[in-house]
């Protein structure tokens, strides 16, 4: 089975999830709504055959939920629990937004994204920059991995315990490669006529299908229920 969602639906999903993430769940019912909402992108990941990451997210989220509900409470103390609470807190609180964002970034092709942005009348500057940001996180991770490998090969691990050196040793090579990649990217963009004065056409035709409309409805309902239960009851 294959569902190709419209990038606009994905953007809408991100918007709703970010808004819900801002409001903390206080009752078990609201927790249920939140968990349901988190399950949607995970299911979508399964459908897109990204099993590894879907299972990873599922386990992460599940463990954090169990820990928060059964083992931690307001009056737990001690440094280890404090760290544990912190990490469980961040996972439970922000994971839904992170999963959704990750799903959207991984499954949206850049031309689809640009075409959606054009349809939404987002200024070119913001659309292009945002597309670059989206594509750049994996690149940074990759480059950082090679820098770490190179350092390991030469036996440099912590920069001699000097905090400033530690930052410098990692940051400078990373910046070098990022600047170079940026130059290549600009050259590629110019050959594709990103600087042109005419309206750009796109090879992908964006259309809202049944699945898109269904998902948008579901998410709107979730948002409505959440706001209603939290503020008007």
């Amino acid at each position, binding site marked *: 089975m294959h569902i190709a969602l419209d990038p606009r639906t994905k953007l809408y999903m991100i918007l709703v999830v*970010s808004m819900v993430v801002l409001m903390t769940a206080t009752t078990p019912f609201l927790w249920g709504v939140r968990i349901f909402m988190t399950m949607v992108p995970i299911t979508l990941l399964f459908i897109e055959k990204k099993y590894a990451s879907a299972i990873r997210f599922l386990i992460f989220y599940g463990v954090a939920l169990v820990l928060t509900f059964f083992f931690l409470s307001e009056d737990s103390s001690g440094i280890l629990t404090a760290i544990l609470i912190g990490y469980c807190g961040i996972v439970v609180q922000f994971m839904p937004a992170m999963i959704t964002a990750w799903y959207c970034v991984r499954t949206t092709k850049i031309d689809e994204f640009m075409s959606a942005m054009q349809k939404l009348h987002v200024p070119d500057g913001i659309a292009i920059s945002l597309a670059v940001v989206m594509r750049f996180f994996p690149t940074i991770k990759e480059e950082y991995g090679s820098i770490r490998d190179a350092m390991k090969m030469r036996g440099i691990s912590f920069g001699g315990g000097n905090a400033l050196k530690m930052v410098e040793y990692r940051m400078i090579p990373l910046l070098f490669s990022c600047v170079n990649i940026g130059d290549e990217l600009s050259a590629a963009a110019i050959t594709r006529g990103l600087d042109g004065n005419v309206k750009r056409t796109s090879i992908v035709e964006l259309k809202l299908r049944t699945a898109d409309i269904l998902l948008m409805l579901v998410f709107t309902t979730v948002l409505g229920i959440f706001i209603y239960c939290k503020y008007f009851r």
Partner: protein
Amino acid sequence: MNSSKLKAKDFITVGIFTAILIVVEFLCGMLGYIHPYIVASYVVMIPLVGAIPMMLFYTKVEKFGMITIMSVLIAIIMFVLGMGYLGAPLIVAAGVIADLIAKSGKYKSFKKTIISYGVFCLWICANYFPVIVTADSYRKDLLDGGYSAEYCDDLFRAINEKTIAVLLILCFVFGCIGAVIGKKVVKKHFEKAGIV
């Protein structure tokens, strides 16, 4: 074609450096969950570490708008990652002012760059906004969300409407110090290599 208009190359530069800055912010942010006082010390850490990429970015800025777009992007990403919309106006305002200051020095004057970066750093304080503006409900939310009472007490002792002024000033000061250090690093590594 108008030479002061932004081109695709500029947008790509903005995108890349925003991504790097977000990574820096995120790594520092992870530490904050250990102890709330570290949350308050973002104002020292992020300006200092972020200064290196930002100074390199400033050498590439020649037109008005690049720093503004960067602040808009940061505001969008902060919202998506769940930091809220309360800080967004502050982030964009800091970006526009920083851009205007740098423009008054024609993007070449080093003094103006330092001040501009200091102002730009104020966006970090935007992350504290929910803590201050909605203090009571935020505290309740944190407790319901599973944070310990100890963490909350410390957090609100470190960040409240009295300390925010100090934090803002610290942010600015360390932004300026960071700019000087960052400039030195850029000179040491990048100008020699001919990349700037």
